[in-house]
């Protein structure tokens, strides 16, 4: 999606990133006295989600760069840490939670990178195992073609041994990071879906083949990889199509180089339904067999999820018996009925993921 409006918070006018982005975008910009002005403009538009995808705000992250992922006690959480580099996304997935998460949704890129570096230094100094990702409130790599800074993050993480960085994306913007000395402390990860869903529900994202080719190139440069089948959509014939994706995945990359694969079926806050209906006229994803889950999100009926996961896991296990599979936000019952154990039997999900990261990325043991 093209950026047509560039807003620059006066506070960051002389930051180096701003100059670079301005030159690169080469569109007129507006200097504003604070983000509120942009929020107002976007909120007042007829379709704030659409407008929000065309307007980029360069500003400061005035809050915390490092945050805990907002999980819920009702479902098993992976205890992830977010590096908050910006908000919203230039791609346009029908199911994207960010459409209803921000009020209004605004593309923000935080350019106070010195503050971000300081936050990371402080985290690293704790010598505590951490999995840190930038792809929670945005896609990790969307800005790489305009202002590449993933390489700097990768280098930063390469110099320590307790935390890993996960860059999660649906783009293939990897050219700038291929030659970086990553020291295997950065995991490149892609969200995967069936070709049908990518075509119908993931506007502006790269194709499945392109994602897998990019993953293979990163693997050839020694990067550890991860994949997220999330959100999986249940539709007639979906099992076969997800099986095709799984087969394709393992024909591109080695299961031994995969740190983890997450699975999650589509879930959404009820407010998203109207947005999808309005913005994605042909989408049927909100008409699945949903019930209100214990976290108030709509989820597929549990027996349906269990049956579906059992099949997907059997397809993965056939090709990659040892790869770590985990669920994003499912409860013990789902774990036991599909994967066959409760994460707490292995010290809990965070521990399982940390162990896998330790094995694949060579993390040091906790000092504390």
């Amino acid at each position, binding site marked *: 999606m093209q950026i047509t409006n560039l807003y620059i918070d006066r506070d960051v006018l002389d930051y180096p990133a701003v100059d670079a982005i301005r030159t690169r975008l080469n569109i007129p910009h507006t200097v504003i006295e604070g983000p509120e002005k942009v929020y107002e403009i976007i909120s007042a538009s007829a379709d704030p989600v659409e407008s929000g995808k065309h307007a980029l705000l360069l500003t400061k992250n005035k809050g915390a760069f490092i945050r805990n992922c907002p999980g819920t006690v009702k479902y098993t959480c992976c205890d992830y840490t977010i590096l908050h580099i910006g908000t919203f996304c230039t791609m346009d997935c029908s199911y994207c939670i960010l459409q209803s998460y921000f009020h209004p949704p605004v593309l923000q890129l935080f350019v106070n990178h010195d503050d971000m570096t300081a936050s990371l230094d402080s985290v690293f100094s704790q010598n505590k195992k951490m999995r840190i990702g930038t792809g929670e409130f945005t896609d990790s790599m969307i800005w790489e073609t305009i202002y590449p800074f993933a390489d700097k993050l990768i280098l930063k993480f390469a110099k320590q041994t307790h935390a890993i960085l996960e860059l999660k994306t649906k783009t293939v913007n990897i050219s700038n990071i291929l030659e970086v000395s990553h020291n295997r402390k950065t995991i490149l990860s892609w969200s995967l879906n069936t070709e049908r869903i990518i075509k119908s529900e993931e506007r502006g994202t790269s194709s499945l083949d392109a994602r897998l080719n990019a993953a293979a190139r990163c693997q050839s440069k020694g990067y550890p990889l991860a994949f997220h089948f999330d959100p999986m959509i249940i539709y007639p014939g979906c099992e076969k199509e997800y099986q095709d994706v799984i087969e394709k995945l393992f024909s591109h990359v080695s299961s031994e180089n995969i740190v983890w694969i997450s699975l999650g079926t589509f879930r959404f806050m009820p407010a998203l339904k109207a947005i999808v209906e309005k913005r994605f006229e042909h989408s049927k994803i909100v008409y699945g067999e949903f019930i209100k889950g214990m976290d108030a999100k709509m989820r597929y009926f549990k027996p*349906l999820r269990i049956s579906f996961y059992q099949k997907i896991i059997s397809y993965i296990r056939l090709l990659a018996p040892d790869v770590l599979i985990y669920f994003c936000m499912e409860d013990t019952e789902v774990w036991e009925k599909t994967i066959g154990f409760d994460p707490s039997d292995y010290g809990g999900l965070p521990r399982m993921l940390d162990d896998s990261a330790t094995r694949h990325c060579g993390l040091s043991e906790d000092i504390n």
Partner: protein
Amino acid sequence: MLFSPQTIALSIVDVADTTYKISTSESIEELLASINCIGLLSPPILKKNPRTYTIISGFKRIAACINLGWTTIEARVVDYKASDLQCARIAIADNSANRSLNFIEQSISLSMLLNYYDDKEVIREAKGLGLNINASLLEKLKKTAQLSSEIKKTILRGTISLTIALELGKMDKPSAMALSQLFESLNPTFNIQKEMLTMVKEIARIKDLSISQLLNDKYFLSIMENGEISRNQKVQKIRYYFKKMRNPVITQFEENFDCLMQRIDLPDEIKLIPPDNFEGTKYSIVFNFQNPKEFEFKKEALDKLMLHPEFIKIFEKEIADYKSLH
């Protein structure tokens, strides 16, 4: 603007011209009785044309007088130079001064004004003419004005709510008519209408059918045409039919659960309650007892429950070879 009181021959009043007609009520029975008894208290307002008179306000009064065989009528006449807007304003002011206008009448009134004013001005203007309208009501009334006359009639009869009517207004005509007829013939509560509407809209989207095609289905028609069941029973059957189409796996699962419960055959007054939507993992047993003897009896039944071969199946949450719609 001046109104001049005049006596006008009813034969030259153009009753077919409904340009300024706001009232949706056609019934003149009460008016007939009142005019017959004490005469015409409030003279209608007419606009003079070269050869005829257009009614601005008082359609029912004139119809009643004609019905009573009157040949002339006392009227307030507006000069032929009066603009359409002036006449519309008079019509709205006169109608709203005499009674509160229903939704359809308000939408007719606004449509008249919207020919001349933008949204902001129209709210101000309407207020001056006795109509209290805010921006969100204005939007609804604008949409109401677009509805077909059949749907407007169902609103007036109180069969469907405005919200439902506006939803019907967004559909293709055959679908809107099919649903409106469904609501008309079964007269379900507004909440059930809303549930049915959402269900059929979603089923139609899932199945790539129009709503009218969906409501032409043999099984659906057989319920509608079944003369042996009551209206309420039809409502229940249709809701279940929609539910089964919308959520086949969930409905099948619930049916299976009920079958299991029947086979387990717990004594009356012992209830096994599954978690909400079968999502959580906590089941509960509720039972009532009146004395220690009854407690003992129910406790024994609960002990036997553990041994029942079907009991364990409840917790498996398995679905039989599902063919999900989705």
